[in-house]
């Protein structure tokens, strides 16, 4: 569904944040971008969603995203950011309705008929129906993130990009968010790419993974292969498997 070829991003002249990363996402895959801080996970998400200028080529269903109009791209690609600080007291419903922006029609085009239905569905799915009238500024971090997940569900894209979506969430909200995304991704014609810090979450929910280090991708493939002891040790500079096992012992 999504192919990225030789993606490079440089924030300044002498250092590349991403250096020739190539990847492919297929239907119903959930690809986890893994790696230590500064490896280029978020940068890759930002390049794929056209937030950052990049070198290389990103194709969605064979079309170069550099030449796709914003509204059309919104139907193909949705993004959930790490955090969404909002200054103004929009209601949850207003936030979710913005997800249908690209399908509202304009002076020369009619709005899509299913706009309201998609908004209602998204509110229902994410359990935000009771929150629809609440102000986004009054919500907790977890509730706010769910409101923006509802927005991106309402947008109804084929591909979902997540940038450390659970960064500020507690365990319960993390689980709820990832369960929702997994359910979403299992429908036909969909896939997910997410930057994740928590390796356990990646292992539990991901189908595939790309390991990043210093802007390069030394390993990619199925989640089991990529998250092998050797791969993780090389990238994180420690025996990750042993560490995880030691952690588990604490709970025995």
């Amino acid at each position, binding site marked *: 569904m999504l192919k990225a070829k030789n993606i490079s991003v440089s924030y300044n002249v002498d250092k590349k944040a991403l250096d020739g990363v190539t990847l492919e996402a297929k239907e119903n895959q959930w690809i986890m971008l893994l790696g230590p801080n500064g490896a280029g996970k978020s940068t890759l998400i930002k390049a794929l*969603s*056209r*937030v950052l*200028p990049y070198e290389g080529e990103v194709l969605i269903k064979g079309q170069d995203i550099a030449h796709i*109009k*914003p*509204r*059309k*791209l*919104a*139907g193909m*690609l*949705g*993004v959930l*950011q790490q955090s*969404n*600080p*909002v*200054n*103004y*007291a*929009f*209601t949850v*419903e*207003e*936030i979710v*309705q*913005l*997800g249908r*922006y*690209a399908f*509202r029609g304009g*002076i020369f085009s009619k709005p899509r008929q299913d*706009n*309201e239905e998609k908004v209602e569905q998204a509110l229902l799915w994410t359990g935000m129906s009771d929150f629809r009238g609440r102000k986004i500024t009054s919500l907790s971090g977890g509730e706010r993130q769910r409101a*923006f997940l509802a*927005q*991106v569900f309402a*947008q109804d894209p084929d591909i979902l990009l997540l940038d450390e979506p659970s960064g500020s969430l507690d365990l319960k909200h993390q689980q709820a968010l990832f369960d929702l995304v997994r359910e979403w991704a299992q429908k036909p014609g969909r896939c997910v790419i997410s930057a994740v810090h928590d390796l356990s979450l990646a292992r539990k929910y991901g189908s595939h993974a790309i390991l990043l280090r210093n802007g390069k991708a030394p390993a990619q493939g199925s989640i089991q292969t990529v998250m092998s002891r050797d791969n993780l040790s090389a990238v994180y500079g420690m025996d990750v498997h042993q560490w995880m096992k030691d952690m588990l012992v604490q709970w025995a």
Partner: protein
Amino acid sequence: MKASEGFSPGQHLVFQLLVLIFIVAGIAMGSVMLPLVDTLDTLWALISGASLPQSSASAILVHVRIPRVLSAALIGAALSLCGAAMQGLLRNPLADGSTLGVSSGASLGAVIAISLGITVPALPFAGTVMMAMLFAFASLMLILALSYSFDRSFSTQTIILMGVIFSMFASSLISLIMAFSGDKLRSITFWTMGSLAGTTYVNVLILLLALVFFGGLITLHGRELNAFAVGEENALHIGVPVRRVKLTVMIAVSGLIGVCVSVGGTIGFVGLIIPHITRMALGPNHRKLLPASFYFGAIFLLLCDLIARTVVSPVELPIGVVTSLIGAMVFVFIFRGRKRKER
């Protein structure tokens, strides 16, 4: 669609009637109080095309008060609309035409026109208008170009910072010009304080055209401004053509502010506090916020103009002084309320 819809035609009508009441009040009241009956008679004669009553009252109305009051309403509406748009676009409740540096740029242009006596033959006023608009556009372009050269992502913080720096720069240039302006100092000083004295029907017409064109352009972007107000990156993700919208709204705002400044001088705080109060009352949705700011801005400036004309009559206060006095106090009050709520 419920929540994102704007006002119904009926609600618009209520707002329009409210503005109309304030316009009529503004016309009837002043240093010389005119009986409401005479005012309405004259207004009716004007509208219906009948011959005007031959009285000094009707002469005051037709030649002085009506153009002035209409200018006040239009400028108030325009400045407030611009403030609302900028606050949404830049996600900053402190943004305003002045924060962007557009007002100062426009002022600089107008001051240069006044001091050098730049006029267009047969249209003596057009020199100031043209220069104010030209400088408003030019300063906007300069601020955007500088912001872009420092920060390729074009972030709003950089733009505001550039705007503030540019404002200071333009103000000092204005002071410099005033120091060398000799006999024109009085008219420049009076003008920089903001004044609607001596506005004509030509002014009203120019304001009206600018408001229909630029104001219409801004109002058409309500949904996009909602998206910007939530977050620029989020706007990009949901499919808003971010750069085009940003540029369109900024150009419309600078055009409108340029025209307002050329007619009424620097009239501060309208674009800051009216959208602020409107947002507190009606919420941040621009489909409502933009038209409501428009109406409330008109009413606010009509009131300020009335105060400027009557409070120490026959002496008239510069309207910019009145708006700033009221605006600064209201703003402190709002800020205090907000801080208390946070505690």
